[in-house]
């Protein structure tokens, strides 16, 4: 990558009017920096893998939560990886799949939204953001076919409609709007079951945070690749709310309290332990 041409001035690609998209600019100017444009050698590759993300709507916004575990085969690659990020001020993105690619993709997606905002002077609509993410996932299809898939969950506050919305994706870039709640990743089956039972209309933000934590606890209970809250090390899931006021990460103290409530609710009184 070079930022100057031979005379020292900014290259013409920089001063060419047109696209407000950083990804499009990169595709024209420095395609090797785009994750989907790299040639891959064949063969099996072991790389850290991120797991469960849950998202649910509540009255006035959304909650997104992700556990802190990354696995590589049967080994735990990381117990404090973060998989939920602010995409911009009014949206959050969580990622399951090959961790390295996913983090690169999130970084590019954050930059894409900020770049648009700076050049156009206005925010993209929530649907516009969701569609941009779909395009970027589609660009990764070649890697996904070699086993390096990235599956994000995107959610945000729609400023035009005045409510929170959730979008899920498949590896081919298919974009699906989800109602009420959704989960992705290896523990998603158990998390979805939990969300179905716990989610209801008119949740407030703090209850919604607790429902999200409980869904992750349920996922960690039955899925070896999902990490539960770690009391000894004080590692809590990453939980964030997005409302009209913007993205806000839930503090560790609030999460410790939410974990307490969930665990106290299922503490067994009998010696052999319960099935809850």
């Amino acid at each position, binding site marked *: *990558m070079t*930022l*100057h041409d031979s*005379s*020292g*001035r*900014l290259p013409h*690609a*920089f*001063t060419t*009017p047109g696209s407000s998209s*950083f990804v499009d*600019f*990169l595709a024209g*100017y*420095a395609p090797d*920096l785009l994750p989907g444009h790299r040639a891959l050698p064949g063969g099996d590759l072991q790389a850290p893998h991120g797991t469960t993300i849950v998202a649910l709507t509540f009255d006035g916004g959304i909650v997104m939560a992700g556990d802190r575990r990354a696995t590589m085969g049967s080994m735990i690659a990381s117990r404090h990886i973060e998989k939920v990020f602010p995409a911009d*001020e009014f949206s959050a993105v969580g990622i399951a799949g090959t961790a390295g690619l996913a983090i690169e993709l999130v*970084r*590019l997606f954050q*930059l894409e939204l*900020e*770049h648009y*905002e*700076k*050049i156009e*002077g206005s*925010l993209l609509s929530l649907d516009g953001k969701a569609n941009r993410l779909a395009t970027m996932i589609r660009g990764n299809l070649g890697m996904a076919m070699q086993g390096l898939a990235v599956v994000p969950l995107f959610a945000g506050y729609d400023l035009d409609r005045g409510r929170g919305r959730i979008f899920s994706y498949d590896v081919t870039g298919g974009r699906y709007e989800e109602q009420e709640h959704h989960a992705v990743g290896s523990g998603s089956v158990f998390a979805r079951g939990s969300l179905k039972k716990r989610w209801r209309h008119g949740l407030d933000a703090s209850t919604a945070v607790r429902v999200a934590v409980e869904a992750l606890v349920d996922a960690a209970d039955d899925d070896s690749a999902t990490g539960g809250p770690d009391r000894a090390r004080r590692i809590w899931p990453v939980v964030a709310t997005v409302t009209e006021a913007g993205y806000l990460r839930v503090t560790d103290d609030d999460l410790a309290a939410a974990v307490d409530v969930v665990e106290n609710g299922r503490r067994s009184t009998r010696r052999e332990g319960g099935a809850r």
Partner: protein
Amino acid sequence: MSMPFYVSPEQLMKDRADYARKGIARGRSVVVLQYDDGIAFATENPSRALHKISEIYDRIAFAAVGKYNEFENLRVAGVRYADLRGYSYDRVDVTARGLANAYAQTLGTVFTTESKPLEVELVVVEVGREPAGDQIYRLSYDGSVADEHGWVVMGGQAERLAGLLGAGWRPGMTLAQALGLAVQVLGSAADDGEPRTLGASQLEVAVLDRTRPRRAFRRLTGALLEDVLGGDDSPPGGDATPAP
């Protein structure tokens, strides 16, 4: 055999410089000045969509006078430069100095090699964690760069306004004091004319606020700007219109 006209290089450069200067002097002035918690930008601009002051990166902003299409093009190039650099290295590696150099080379190359110079004057500003870390670079149509301290005025009547601003500015002003001075300077009249009072709707005002965690740039519009201009000495609250 016909003799081609000979134009000396001095004359050629002088003609280009005069041409660019004339274009720039037609525009309204932009005032940039440091205050205790950051750097403020103000200009008379009734448009809400066509900006002269913009965000480039987390702690870097851009202000320009002259031909809109030319500086808008440079602004977009600056955003692309900064975002590409931040993506390749890290966000902290994007500096105003690097951007000012890139702009200077671009302006200089266009001035000497193309038939028409860019009729623009730019300021690239980076806000530091402390006032001592603030950087203000002023770039001219010919690619010359000046490292300014405290304040800058560009555009039409820059010299007259610079005299007024230089007399009124001192380090450590509050935002309200700094903007009060800026608006007074922008509204001052040449010769013995009557000074104008500029309202919030006629002004484009933005700040690089050093107390903000990541993106320091914020536009001040509407009620918030009226509050600040109304002599309210308290720092602007969190109810700001989201930037930009």
